[in-house]
């Protein structure tokens, strides 16, 4: 292969990888919402629909041993990072096959095999922990990096700032991935901060901060790759503001009364998934048939995993007495 061919090949591989991750995240999110709407299962989820480009770019740019910390809205991130669908859906549905055998729940998924070390339901709480994960990497002499995902709203927390400052001070390999979807629950971003660019928050900590199009998976891939390279080289952390949108509101079922219809319509019109599909087809990096196939495979994979999960048992009652303290001697019953 010539260099040009190799580059073309790798551009094609990357495109396929990104599109596969995006469609898988989308399929998973949609299938869960469908199941809730149909009454198949009674659970709460915080849909990531609309934010898939970030997860895809991030997942594609990171190595398997790189770490990820994410949130309740992070199923897409975890899919991008490679968490098996059975573990994800199993935990969301509270089954014994779940990542935490039903003990953690959707907001608390851990899958160390692919680097997902923590998922938090407490806004901002993952940020300082990510700093510690990066500190361990340095102590262990590893060049792995740590990505931590959170929302725009999370940048208003004290934890966020304390973590940012510590990572910058210690020049640790952390990539702060702010998925700015312009809302925190029902409150628009303009009501909770007085800045135009969330990326400017990095200035308070002497950290590079970039604002990128979070609906462009290649832009995310590029930015994360550079940040990771910098982190691996011992050149410290990076803050990335990835501007995106949440199509389905805060939680599945959110009536979104607070949402200006034009704003939602404009966001939906810029849906990153059809947009990327079209771009790839136009650039001849993917054929329409290939794209269709990727989409169908995603849906099929989700369906198969879901079927397996739904036929798996509920967690055993003995779960309460294992994996609590390593040694249960003297612990109240």
């Amino acid at each position, binding site marked *: 292969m010539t260099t040009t061919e190799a580059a073309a090949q790798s551009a094609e591989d990357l495109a396929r990888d990104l599109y596969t991750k995006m469609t898988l995240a989308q399929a998973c999110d949609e299938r869960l919402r469908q199941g809730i709407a149909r009454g198949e299962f009674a*659970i*709460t989820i915080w849909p990531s629909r609309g934010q898939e480009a970030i997860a895809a770019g991030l997942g594609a740019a990171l190595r398997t041993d790189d770490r990820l910390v994410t949130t309740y809205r992070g199923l897409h991130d975890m899919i991008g990072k490679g968490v098996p669908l059975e573990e994800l859906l199993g*935990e969301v549905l*509270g*089954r014994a096959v*779940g990542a*935490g055998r*039903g*003990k*953690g*729940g*959707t*907001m*608390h998924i851990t899958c160390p095999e692919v680097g997902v070390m923590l998922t*938090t*339901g*407490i*806004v*901002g709480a993952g940020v300082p922990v990510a700093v510690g994960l990066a500190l361990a990497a340095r102590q262990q002499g590893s060049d792995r990096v740590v990505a931590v995902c959170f929302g725009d*709203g*999370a940048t*208003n*927390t*004290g*934890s966020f700032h304390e973590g940012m400052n510590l990572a910058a001070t210690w020049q640790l390999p952390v990539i702060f991935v702010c998925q700015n979807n312009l809302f*925190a*629950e*029902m*409150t628009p971003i303009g*009501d*909770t*901060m007085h800045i135009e660019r969330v990326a400017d928050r990095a200035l308070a900590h002497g950290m590079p901060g970039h604002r990128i199009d979070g609906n462009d998976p290649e832009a995310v891939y590029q930015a994360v790759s550079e940040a990771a390279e910098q982190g691996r080289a011992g050149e410290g952390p990076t803050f990335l503001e990835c501007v995106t949108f949440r199509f389905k509101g805060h939680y599945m079922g959110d009536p979104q*009364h*607070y949402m200006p219809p034009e704003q939602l319509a404009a966001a939906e019109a810029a849906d990153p998934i059809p947009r990327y599909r079209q771009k790839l087809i136009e650039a001849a990096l993917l054929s329409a048939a290939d794209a269709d196939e990727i989409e169908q495979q995603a849906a099929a994979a989700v369906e198969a995993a879901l079927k397996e999960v739904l036929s798996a048992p*509920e*967690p055993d*009652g003995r*779960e*309460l007495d294992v994996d*609590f303290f390593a040694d249960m001697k003297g*612990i*109240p*019953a």
Partner: protein
Amino acid sequence: MTIAAETRTLTMAGAINEALDEALAADPRVFLLGEDLADPAGGVSGVTSGLSTKYGRDRVLDTPISEAAIAGAAIGAAIEGRLPVAEIMIMDFITIALDQIVNVAAKARFMSAGRTGCPMTVRTASFGGLGSGATHSQSLEAWFMHVPGIKVVVPSTPADAKGLLTAAIFDPDPCLFLETVALYGTRGEVPSGTHVVEIGQADVKRSGSDVSIVCYGRAVVDALQAAEELAAEGMEAEVVDLRTLVPLDIDTVLESVGRTRRAVVAHYSVEFAGPGAEIAAQINSRLFGRLAAPVQRVGARFRPIPSARALEAAVFPNAHLIAEAARRATGSPP
């Protein structure tokens, strides 16, 4: 409890909303602050619905996700004599506001020798029992009991919720007002118009002579159900709803247990080192030699709260476990 002549059926959430509404109407010093409180959201559980529309966004303030600053801002305003009602959406998040509540609010009057007070109310809610997992389901009121300087209020009925919240808002000292999401939909008769339930007054929710079930919040609902179960077996349980943990109306508890000579203490917070430990210790020492059986405690198991529903249910108390405890206290066969 003063019950006004006229009552209507309201949900617990509706009663809380009404207390806030009437306080906002009655006194310009009252204002609310917290995440997503304003309309159209009206709070994540809709409890503050309509209030920002009625009183404006200067009186019902949406905040950033900044629990320390929410508490701090409420404290600062309270120091100036305002009557802020701060919402910490879910009780597990109060960890973030704890420095402010514990080290500033609870100590403001004492450390200043009375030159500043802190008439702030912190509304928060326990989300336990909804499958939300270990970080969104805790009941941490025991922590606040242990901190001298803040009152701790936990209503179990819509009427009490209205009356106690009104009292808390106008109380000259900081109050923690703990709501229970699982009870938001509970219906009950609620007085219209101003309704104040004195803080520090327990309420006998059912009379009985065989055993006293001392409880508060959600456990009251279970205790009343347990009492029905027990009544069918011929055992008359008295249900004492503490309503507030600080001040603790130990006199009403001792009067009841002094009569029944048997006590069950029940709550949804963790049993170990929980509120029930203090109550049991006081009953035991004040009624030493007069009890017919050891005080039985029923609280949440000493575990992080699991998310899967069946596991979660195995951690929390329920009517059946309370009834069991009553049977143990009375030596009745199961």
